[in-house]
């Protein structure tokens, strides 16, 4: 970046005369934001607004949508599969978010204390994050294969008879959760490493002089000062887990018998398999509202917590 000194001096006498006589609504600024604004209006705002109509309408791809009030929501309420899907989604979120946080934080602390391998390990742990979920799904469905997969192969070496993973109703959702943890913990670890770097080391030194052990220092210094990072990791993790779709579509198709069916896959099937756009939209609206609440919580939390010290 070049030095800004010389041109700055030159522009000084003109600082007041810069503004041109042109009405504000003719500002060229509109021209510059127009392309981005157009795609946002057409492919974000319009779908978001129409969701509020479609969720209360019946429509089967032809003709005009017909207003049906709360009928779509009533249908969801009475649908056993929908309740199962909600339960599965909550299970999946609880099975993925806490492990990603614990593992991410533990590895961040461990890697920080190992300066020689720190960079190499960060690279390794971030690899699954940048690997396409499509690739991960192909590879893991083979890893899980009961007869030729590496996982059961290794389990049998220590005398354990592994389950049939994706095709076992009791294990299908857990199989997807394990894949998600494998793919995602490097992301939370990277966030925690950044958070740890922001903690003033003199606090630790002072506590050590006062005789605090590493366990005390973690709970009294690291954990509280890391809370903005933890908060961010939790929200991003929740949002991500609630939206799981690709691994379900590729690996289990929600099965066997809806054992791994989750909210977004349910929406996808309602709309694109059964052409029930109204019911799909109603479920989408619930997801939208829920995510908006999470995001609002995050933004409020960020406002009050970023200035922690």
């Amino acid at each position, binding site marked *: 970046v070049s030095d800004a000194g010389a*041109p*700055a001096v030159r522009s000084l006498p003109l600082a007041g005369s*810069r503004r041109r006589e042109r009405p*504000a609504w003719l500002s060229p600024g509109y021209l*510059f*934001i127009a*392309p*981005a*604004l157009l*795609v*946002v209006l*057409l*492919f*974000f705002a319009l*779908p978001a607004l*129409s*969701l509020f109509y479609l969720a209360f309408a019946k429509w089967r791809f032809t003709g005009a949508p017909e207003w049906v009030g709360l009928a779509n929501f009533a249908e969801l309420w009475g649908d056993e599969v929908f309740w199962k899907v909600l339960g599965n989604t909550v299970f999946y979120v609880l099975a993925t978010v806490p492990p990603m946080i614990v593992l991410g934080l*533990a*590895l961040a602390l*461990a890697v920080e*204390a*190992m300066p020689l391998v720190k960079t190499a*390990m960060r690279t*390794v*742990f971030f690899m699954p994050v*940048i*690997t*396409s*979920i*499509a*690739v991960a799904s*192909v*590879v*893991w*469905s*083979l*890893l899980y294969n009961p*007869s*030729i997969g*590496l996982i059961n*192969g*290794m389990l049998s*070496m220590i005398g354990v008879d592994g389950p049939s993973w994706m095709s076992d109703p009791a294990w299908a959702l857990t199989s997807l959760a394990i894949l998600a943890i494998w793919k995602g913990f490097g*992301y939370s670890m990277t*966030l925690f490493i950044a958070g740890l770097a922001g903690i003033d080391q003199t606090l630790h030194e002072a506590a050590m002089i006062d005789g605090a052990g*590493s366990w005390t220092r973690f709970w009294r210094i690291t954990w509280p000062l890391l809370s903005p990072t933890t908060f*961010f990791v939790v*929200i991003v993790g929740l*949002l991500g887990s609630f*939206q799981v779709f*690709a691994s379900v*579509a*590729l*690996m289990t198709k929600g099965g066997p018998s809806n054992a791994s069916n989750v909210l*977004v896959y349910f929406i*996808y099937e309602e*709309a*694109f398999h059964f052409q029930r756009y109204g019911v799909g939209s109603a479920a*989408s609206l619930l997801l*939208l509202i829920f995510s908006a609440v999470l995001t609002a919580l995050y933004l409020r939390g960020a406002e009050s917590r970023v200035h922690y010290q």
Partner: protein
Amino acid sequence: MPTIRVLLVVVAALAVSLPYLWTFSASLRPSRDVFLATGWGLLPPLNPSLENYITAISRVPMLRWFVNSVVFSVGELVGQIGMGALAAFGFVRYEFPGRGFFFGLILATMMIPAVALIVPLFLVINALDWVDTYQGLIIPRLGLTVGFATFLLRQTFLTIPRELDDAQAVDGANALQRFWHLYIPLSRPALAAAGIIGFVHSWNEFTWPYIVTFSDSIRTLPVGAQKFVADGLREWGPSMAYAVMLTLPVVAIYIVFQRAFAQGFISSGIRG
């Protein structure tokens, strides 16, 4: 304590790297090799062959999907950076009625999950008769991704001294010239970060192409992967070859641009 620490890192490193190792050596293993399920499957094969790669390429329209993936990812990259940089310049350099509202609207795209909008978005694409076309694949997704580029580049443009801009204006440079000769060159690192992230996210993207494309002539590589999951049991060799071919470009980009990468991925976090 140090022992637990080392153990944890070693176990995690093995858990992450073994699937890559297994995939890579399985992709080079001739299909009659039976050591897949045992620890031996992790070792490099005794007689490596590209048989699986040839099978994978001939079984599916791999070349076409590759070209589609490139078209999609480059289209997304150019669209995000181009529209994002123009919008960022507009927001930073001008004051106009509604500026705050429009900026808020563009930022809102980063806060609402795209999957919640997929049903109505598909209906918009259908109304435009864009289903299963390149424009339907590329342009609508920009509405959901341009927010991040706009946000990132606005932050960068704000750090460029206003005096530099004024000086060029006095010298007779119009707004477009200043945008192109001043703001763009001074923002290269941010442009590179936004570009790399945009490209890799698009390259890996599964959901949108899966929803909006049906025919082999438009589909991208990640969507094509479903053919290799379904046939997994009978033909694991080609599946592994496909996984390697899909991953290699991203790994290459990651290793070359490592620093820009992690940072950019983190700041794009909320969109997942």
